């Protein structure tokens, strides 16, 4: 029935479903807020209606079922942030059969039937690794904190990162995990520093810009070049506040507003325009040079930056409003 209704609806609003598999997580909620901000902006508010579904635990089976529910409720297009790189195939097959376009939005997805609108996560990992190599001093000992073991993004990226670091002459003396959580990053970095106080650099994947420097401060050690990247306000401020104390860092992160970018592409597609099948956008980088411009001193440490996307012009105030669940 999908194809028929889609055709009949051309003069009506497009109904666009969004499936988000980790309810309550800050980055993704900020993304949804940006998505809603865009959908309610003058350019879009007469064109689209959103149907947002959140499931829990980053669980592919639940995501798959929720996407099937979206299909059943007659959406015109589906955006989803993949819980796994292949777990939604059943729903995608069904959507494709009903000519409902599906866009993997926020992460990569392995399927020829799916459009991908995502940050270039693979590069996000290697950009940081290359920066670290370039900024290491004579001390080539490096500590590495991976993200969350078993998550595709982490396990797809970390081998490449480790290879680059090793090939570049760094010696990886300690490995831990940051759990994509600044508190965990701080605790595990502190643990590592207890046994390896002499590291010359830290690579922490997509989190750790606050926790890692805090651990150094707590241990009374001098800062070393640090790669982080949660994109929290605190990360930017940490970098700008401690620049004088010698903190050098490269915070590489993807904007959550990529969800809004996904919406833009979905609308284009529904309007009959052609879009590229795979669109990977470069991540943002906060370094000592631009940290001051990113740091919002009146916002909390875990305010998520990257609420806007180049070319979309989303306002902080709107994002905050939708973040509050309006």
């Amino acid at each position, binding site marked *: 029935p999908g194809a028929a209704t889609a055709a009949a609806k051309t003069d009506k609003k497009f109904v666009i479903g969004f499936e988000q598999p980790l*309810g309550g997580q800050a980055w993704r909620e900020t993304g949804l807020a940006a998505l809603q901000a865009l959908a309610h902006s003058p350019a879009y508010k007469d064109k689209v209606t959103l149907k947002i579904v959140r499931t829990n635990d980053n*669980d592919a*089976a639940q995501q798959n*079922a929720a996407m*099937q529910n979206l299909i059943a409720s007659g959406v015109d297009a589906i955006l989803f942030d993949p819980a796994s*790189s292949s*777990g939604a195939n059943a729903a995608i097959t069904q959507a494709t059969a009903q000519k409902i376009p599906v866009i993997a939005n926020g992460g990569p997805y392995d399927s020829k039937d799916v459009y991908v609108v995502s940050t270039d996560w693979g590069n996000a990992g290697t950009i940081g690794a290359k920066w670290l190599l370039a900024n290491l001093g004579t001390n080539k000992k490096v500590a590495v904190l991976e993200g969350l073991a078993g998550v595709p993004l982490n396990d797809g990226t970390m081998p490449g990162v480790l290879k680059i670091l090793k090939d570049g002459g760094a010696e990886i003396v300690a490995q831990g995990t940051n759990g994509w959580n600044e508190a965990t990053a701080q605790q595990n970095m502190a643990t590592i520093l207890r046994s390896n106080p002499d590291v010359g650099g830290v690579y922490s994947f997509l989190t750790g810009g606050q926790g890692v420097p805090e651990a150094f401060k707590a241990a009374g050690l001098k800062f070393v070049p640090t790669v982080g990247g949660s994109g929290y306000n605190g990360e930017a401020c940490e970098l700008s506040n401690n620049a004088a104390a010698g903190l050098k860092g490269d915070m590489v992160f993807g904007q959550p507003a990529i969800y809004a970018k996904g919406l833009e592409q979905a609308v284009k597609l529904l309007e009959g325009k052609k879009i590229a099948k795979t669109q990977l956008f470069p991540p943002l980088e906060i370094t000592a040079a631009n940290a001051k411009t990113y740091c919002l001193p009146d916002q909390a440490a875990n305010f998520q930056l990257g609420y806007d996307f180049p070319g979309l012009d989303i306002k902080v105030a709107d994002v905050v409003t939708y973040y509050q669940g309006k």
Partner: protein
Amino acid sequence: MTLPTAPSRAWNAHGVTRLRREGAVAPVAAFLVFFIVYVIINPGLLTRFQLQSAANLVVPLALAALGQLIIVLVGGIDISIGAIMSLSNVVFALSMEHLPVPLAMLAGIGAGLACGLFNGFLVAYLRLPAIAVTLASAFIIGSITREIMDRPGGGITPAFYLATSGELLPYLPISIFWLAIVGVALWLVLQRSALGRHIYGVGSSADSVRAAGLNARGAQLAAFALSSVIVSFGAIMLAGSTITGDPRSGDSYLLSSIAAVALAGAAFTGGRGSILGTILAACTLGLVGSLLFFAGVNSYWQYVISALIVISVVGVPVIWRTTYLAIRRVRS
């Protein structure tokens, strides 16, 4: 000696008695109410498409809950159930790359069984508390799983999807068919074999079972083994419905399987719990999110509503009994 006259009641009266004894009346009633509300809000559930997607979502949870139920029957609780599910899922998905389906299934079930035997051995023969053992083994099994396969993948084929979760049968979702097979087989084991009764008995009083000359430890070990096999089936069904193996796929089933067993009215001290009640409880809890979606309610409410369902379905009979007693006392 006179001939026995006692078992003259119809068998279904006996079945109802058993359901009541096993605490399954409230969850069955709750499921019926839930189902009716669901169909009123979203009649589309009864279309083939929606029924199938609902079934595919619910069947792995139902199987995980049945696995949890068996452990609960012997008076334990399995914190490692999600980890076992992930391991079995991953081993199966990887084996599918090289092996024919039956062998891959054997591999997946074998991996799960090994975990079950490990837990069961520690609980039954070293007499360690189940909750503590499985807490530790959850860490261990989870780690092994991620060593085997660090990101989603594996060789699940669309044909396997068709066979486990697809449109193989007319109207009836095939996953329900497989669940029914497993459920009936489990029912036969638990209700129609001595071993099954031993499992119930061990949960009720292990010392008494031992004093009766039965192998209580063996029954406990068997329960853990049986549970892990059922859970592995769940893992395979999950791999089929998502067409992928995933080292974190089982994580979310820990809390939900416990909640489902609770909703099923099973006694966590052991010895009491119903298969039908557990399956229906899993269906109820598994579909709360979908119901809210079709009712247009903010999906955050699903957490609140699931919790309230569990608390009220288990709690309301208690309140009812107390008020009933109070009223009777006032009257007398």
